[in-house]
């Protein structure tokens, strides 16, 4: 009996904690049940979910149109919306750096590129640091524009479909049917990119930003990545550096249509360029249409 006395003591202590009074108030979460919606963190996932669902389930994207979804940080109001979403479609590969800094329900997160985790491209040259008693640690990560590899895009679309089926089993037949069509469209893009790649694979490629790693690997189009903004005229030093690093047979790949003064300078220098828009955010045209235009533009290059 004596050996149970600590338990008894614990019992009485815990017993003292069992008091309160009654009151009615609002639920902690799920404030607005009027609309069922999922949230996608970028344009491709928004497009995939929209293609796979009916109109009765909305697909939202909280990122403003003029913001790169990879750089977006949610406000408190955005987080409260995220908490109410039925599903949050994540890109993976460290795309949503805000994820570790907000409170959302883990079971509603869908890591769409999780099945291809082995294919994530680790970034090199990331700074690490150490201070105090802690050991060295780095804030490094992965290249995240996974959907520019159309094979990975298919994996992501399939993951979106799987999550939607699990959440709404009654829509399984509908989602499966739409997935077949979606995968076929992405396969067409893949074939288009493959065909275009064979025509330009001997040229020296220069990418305006280091966001094409998956594209370069899938279509065997390695190139030099710069940090040039399409709406910001590079300085003379940058132009000189470009000429020093490149040959005459250069094809410059922009994320978006460059400014007129930039295209003028490129023409003067004899640099051919083309726009390959990753379509990370929502735009006037949907993701598939933008990608088709990308393919068409690339196929015009020799």
């Amino acid at each position: 009996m004596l050996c149970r006395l600590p338990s008894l003591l614990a019992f009485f202590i815990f017993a003292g904690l069992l008091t309160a009074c009654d009151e009615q108030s609002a639920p902690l979460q799920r404030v607005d049940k009027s609309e069922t919606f999922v949230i996608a963190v970028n344009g491709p996932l928004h497009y995939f979910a929209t293609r796979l669902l009916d109109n009765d389930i909305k697909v939202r994207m909280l990122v403003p149109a003029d913001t790169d979804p990879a750089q977006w940080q949610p406000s408190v109001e955005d987080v409260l919306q995220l908490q109410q979403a039925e599903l949050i479609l994540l890109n993976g590969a460290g795309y949503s750096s805000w994820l570790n800094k907000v409170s959302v329900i883990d079971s509603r997160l869908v890591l769409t590129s999780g099945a291809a985790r082995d294919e994530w491209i680790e970034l090199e040259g990331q700074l690490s640091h150490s201070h105090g008693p802690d050991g060295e640690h780095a804030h490094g990560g992965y290249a995240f524009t996974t959907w520019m590899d159309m094979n990975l895009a298919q994996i992501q679309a399939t993951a979106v479909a799987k999550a939607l089926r699990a959440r709404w089993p009654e829509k399984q037949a509908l989602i499966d049917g739409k997935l077949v069509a979606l995968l076929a469209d992405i396969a067409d893009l893949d074939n288009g990119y493959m065909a275009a790649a064979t025509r330009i694979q001997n040229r020296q490629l220069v990418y305006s930003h280091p966001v094409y790693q998956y594209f370069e690997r899938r279509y065997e189009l390695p190139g030099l990545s710069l940090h040039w903004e399409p709406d910001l005229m590079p300085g003379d030093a940058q132009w000189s550096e470009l000429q020093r690093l490149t040959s005459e047979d250069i094809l410059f790949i922009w994320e978006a249509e460059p400014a007129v003064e930039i295209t003028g300078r490129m023409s003067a220098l004899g640099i051919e360029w083309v726009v390959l828009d990753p379509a990370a955010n929502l735009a006037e045209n949907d993701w598939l249409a933008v990608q088709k235009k990308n393919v068409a533009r690339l196929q015009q290059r020799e």
Partner: protein
Amino acid sequence: MDLLYLSLQYVRHHRLKLVVLIFTITLVSWLPIAIQSIVDQTAEQLLDRADSTPLVIGAPGSPLELSLGSLYFRSKTSSTIPYSEVATLEQTGFSRAIPLYYRFRVQDYPVVGTSLDYFDYRDLHLAQGRPVAILGEAVLGSGVAKASGLGIGDHVITSPESVFDLAGVYPLRMPVVGVLSPSFSPDDDAIFVDVKTSWVIQGLGHGHQELNRREAIGQILKREGDNIVANASVRQFNEITVDNLDSFHFHGKNANNPISAIIPVPWDDKSSALLLGHYLEERSDVQIVRSRRVVTELLDTVFTVRDYIVVGIALVAAATAVVAVLVFYLSLRLRQGERYTLSRIGASGVQIQTLMATEIIAVLLVSALLCTALVLITRHYGIILMQQLLLS
């Protein structure tokens, strides 16, 4: 009227004796009823809480410690399991998983790191404010808010685990963004944060000034390739704000970070049985406990102890009753002269007997009234009084 006057005068004259008698009889009557009442109430509430949390998963060790820790956030042990167990549990397909990390305190209040699922699971509601949204925010239980006088816009500061840990983690200052409505449960006396905030409190995640900026040059010891080695004077933030949120980061993977326990929420009874079987048969590195069984075992001990106490008090009560009878008998003997005098001045036999009985009736009546009042008080406040008595 004369009879009442004489009775009152007697009581007044012998008040000390009567008070002692009333006190003794009240006490021996009240104690067994009070113990029974407290134990029954407590057992009921413990079983209710256990029933609402049928299963708990945690580190191997004492099932009682794990159950009471998970249900009441009062565990002092540091046994943990990795956060990856949450995903492992969900991958079984039998259950949702709610993490709990209740290692830290703000003064005496437990800081419970968990997920938003917990609030749905416990049917907790907000009286004011909003749920935690970003790292470092806190929601107060109603009891904490009431006792501390804190509300929306105020801050709570975590208590260091040891005052002698000079190289330890800085306390985290957390803004209060919500206050829960009372829930008749230990949740009222807890402070809720996101489980990731608990890891920041522990020092597994932190925010500090950028080391690759010019202002930090004084803190840099050396640069080795892509690695910057800084000294310990690097300024770390002790509060997470919108301005410094970007600088907060975690060392290592969340999957490896610790939690105290997981509350599984099985889809149905079949899933619950399968889950139990899965963990009992296939996992030795973690334990799954049935809260009701653990609490029932604890209550069995309590009931046994209670029975011993009640028997002891019953014996004392019997002895007290004998003493009281003796006191009354001796009192009547002592009042023999009084009875004779009353008879000689013309009082009837009934009047004399009534006057003599007044002492006994008054003692029993007052004792009964006091006992009833104490029982009623015990039913309402007995558990709190017991807690204060034990904690003091």
